[in-house]
């Protein structure tokens, strides 16, 4: 008995660090096969022409050079930037304001906060389907907004100028309660003594917010800005389901995420699709680097 314990303990001590490798191996193998390999394969594809039927042909940087003159790509690029702008700045401000409201004590707060949080629950496709109905040109939202002024038709989704803004409004509606929760977590982390000290020094609520809360919320502020922009650069399901046709009308809601799909699975131009996705990747990496820089220096 004693002998066997000593023997096992000895052999275990000899081996045991290798068990760590055994534990991580399934996951590492999986990521090698379904993440790292396709990432590198995609990078390589972006330097080729490939239509799924004939073998890929190496074309160097041609795909990227072509993108610069590609009107569809330039439009999608511009649409994406407009969407990112609309999905970050207003979201940042409004979710902070919402958090400041719900951070206070008042009657019915928990139930109202839960109601406010509801848009976070449905999957994005559900949100798109519901708003597609609400935003009919002479539908419910038109009657609720234009009805007062006798307007019976607003072409929320059918008008190429208005449609991108409808996308932004719906996206912001769905995402603001989520970022409010992030702000609330940041506000909850501020030691209450800070505010009490400010109150003793005679600071009003606005000055307390400006000089006490806001400096403490710096990392939350960077997080909200970074997350909302990374999220917005990747948008695609909303623009696929909500408009009258994916990316429409007249490509006014065509974003880079949709263009990858269009080139890849509609036109079978895999090289061009991969090149567009590399551009997306670069944009998102840039945001991540800016975020890291802010976290270190600001």
């Amino acid at each position, binding site marked *: 008995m004693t002998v066997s314990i000593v023997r096992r*303990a000895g052999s275990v001590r000899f081996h045991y660090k290798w068990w760590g*490798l055994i534990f991580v191996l399934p996951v*590492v193998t999986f*990521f090698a096969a379904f993440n790292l390999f396709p990432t590198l394969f995609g990078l390589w*594809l972006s330097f080729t022409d490939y239509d799924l039927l004939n073998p890929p042909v190496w074309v160097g940087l041609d795909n990227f050079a072509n993108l610069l003159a590609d009107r569809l790509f330039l439009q999608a690029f511009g649409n994406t930037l407009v969407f990112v702008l609309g999905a970050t700045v207003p979201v940042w401000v409004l979710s902070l304001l*919402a958090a400041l409201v719900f951070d206070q004590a008042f009657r019915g707060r928990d139930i109202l906060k839960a109601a406010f949080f509801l848009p976070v629950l*449905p*999957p994005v496709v559900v949100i798109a*389907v519901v708003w597609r109905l609400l935003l009919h040109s002479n539908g419910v939202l038109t009657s609720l907004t234009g009805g007062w002024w006798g307007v019976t038709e607003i072409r929320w989704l059918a008008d190429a100028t208005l449609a991108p803004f409808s996308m932004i409004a719906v996206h912001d509606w769905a995402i603001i309660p989520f970022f409010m929760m992030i702000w609330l977590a940041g506000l909850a982390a501020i030691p209450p003594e800070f505010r009490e000290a400010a109150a003793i020094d005679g600071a009003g609520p606005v000055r307390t917010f400006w000089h006490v809360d806001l400096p403490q919320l710096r990392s939350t502020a960077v997080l909200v800005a970074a997350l909302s922009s990374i999220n917005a650069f990747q948008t695609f399901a909303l623009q696929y389901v909500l408009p009258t046709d994916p990316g429409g009308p007249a490509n006014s809601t065509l974003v880079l995420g949709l263009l990858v799909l269009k080139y*890849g699975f509609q036109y079978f131009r895999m090289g061009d699709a991969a090149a567009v996705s590399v551009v997306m990747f670069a944009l998102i990496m840039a945001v991540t680097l800016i975020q890291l820089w802010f976290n270190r220096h600001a």
Partner: protein
Amino acid sequence: MRKRLENIRRGRPVRTLIASVMAVLFAFPIWFMVTSAFKAETEIEAIPMHLIPWQFQGIAQFRLAAEIAPMWTYFLNSWLYALTHVGVTVFFGALAGFGFAKYRFPGRGLLFLAVLSTVMVPFQVLVVPLFIEVKAFGWENSYPGLLIPGMMNAFGVLMMRQYASDLPDELLEAARVDGASEFRIFLQIAFPLLMPALGSLAIIVFIWSWGAFLWPLVIVQDKALNVLSVGLTTYTQPYNGQPMWGAAMAASTVATIPIAALFIFFQRYFVKGLTAGAVKG
């Protein structure tokens, strides 16, 4: 302190009013979705809007939704998709997180960096090459192709490594001295201690995979394999020349119920999980 009590006693009606307006504005579309699932098709777009169904339809719109398209098949596929992702990510995430946190084996840093780097790559970058790869495996339009490529989420490994590194080494060492095998140490000591974190992880992965759209959209053509979020797009199109918004709202409600149930029953984990998932970037 006294001031706070006083505020609560007075109930702060102005704040309640402001918060009520915000709550109504944001909850209204969800209210509209759920009530419209019980309205007759003709009253859904009635103006002025009906706040509650005037001609209550019972479950007729849900029946109709299941007739127009195989909604319950979509629903089951969504469950299959979400549960595979949750199960694999929770178990293997905990296993690998524990391995990275508690064992100093050669190549650990490099392998961890490899896992970490996968979090940075947005899925849109993967979708085209991954599609070609999976097609080459012959998995296109099949359950393996639908379920396998995304079933492990690197975020799970990162999160679990974080929590596993807080486990006391003495505890593991004591079990080791008692002759427990390393796998038993993981299964019977580490795994139960990681449970609270695994709960948050399970919820966040469930939400992500329940709403997954892009991969199921490109890899599956067969209706019988579609998940609910892809299947939902069917309902925005007219059926036999008639709009089917009642069915669309019914199916949308069905697609929202699992997440809403999670929110109601696990509110604390839910918000924790979502915030933790957010910080991953």
